[in-house]
């Protein structure tokens, strides 16, 4: 299983221009092209998860995640925010890179936890924040995932 296989070019936004964490989550959920009601439920669930503790893991990276029946397969999205967002991250620093992961309650292949783990593993690599900052296109982002072999 390679992380690259779960991302599609249309679910990558390298130019987030949002003001808040909420707005950012909404924009990223929007990349899944669900109906309005499903988007609203998903956003609420992600917010509730954030209220239990921030998913900002430090070094400018956040991994908001949840399970919900409004998606029928595992979906992932990535967003980059140049200026950085207040995500109440563990290290209290602004978040520039947001990996969003959502999955249905039950998956045949049970990929949710492994994908979450792989993104965490990727995020912990020393040069990743710097490399993510330098990525110039969605394809470049996918190449970086491939290169890292996660």
């Amino acid at each position, binding site marked *: 299983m390679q992380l690259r296989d779960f991302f599609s070019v249309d679910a990558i936004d390298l130019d987030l221009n949002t003001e808040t964490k909420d707005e950012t989550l909404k924009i990223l959920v929007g990349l899944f092209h*669900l*109906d309005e*009601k*499903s988007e609203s*439920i998903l956003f*609420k*669930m992600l917010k*509730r*998860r954030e*209220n*239990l*503790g*921030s*998913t900002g*893991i430090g070094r400018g990276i956040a*991994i908001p995640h*949840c*399970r*919900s*029946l*409004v*998606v*029928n397969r595992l979906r992932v999205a990535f967003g980059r925010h140049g200026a950085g967002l207040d995500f109440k991250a*563990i290290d209290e620093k602004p978040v520039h890179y947001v990996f969003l992961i959502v999955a*249905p*309650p*039950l998956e045949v292949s049970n990929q949710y*936890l492994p994908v*979450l*783990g792989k993104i*965490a593993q990727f995020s912990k690599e020393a040069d990743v924040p710097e490399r993510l900052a330098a990525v110039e296109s969605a394809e470049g982002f996918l190449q970086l995932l491939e290169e890292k072999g996660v």
Partner: protein
Amino acid sequence: MHEQLETLLEMQDLHMQRRALEEGGVRELETGLFEMSAEEAIDALDAKISELELRLGKSIQERFRSLIGTRQRAVVPVLAGVCYGCFVAVPTSWAAEADPNEKLNVCQSCGHFQYYPT
């Protein structure tokens, strides 16, 4: 979407989160990587579930509790015309509606609430 179906979906998602926090893999990740306090999170989820429950009619509330308690899921998806609670085909007239989620559908075979994902 039917208002009570929306509440049921939210409640089920919260139950899923709660259950996941009691299991090894997710709990380990949430408390390790995200530094979450699992006990505090479970308390917060319980409080929210109780709050949402008040929005449901009594019979719906009872059905939800019974299903979530015995079968772990109260709301199941209908995919390609098949109920994923029992794998029996749903009446074609239900699936053919413009937005089947506007009604609170209960499977005639397994009794689960049904949700039609987009």
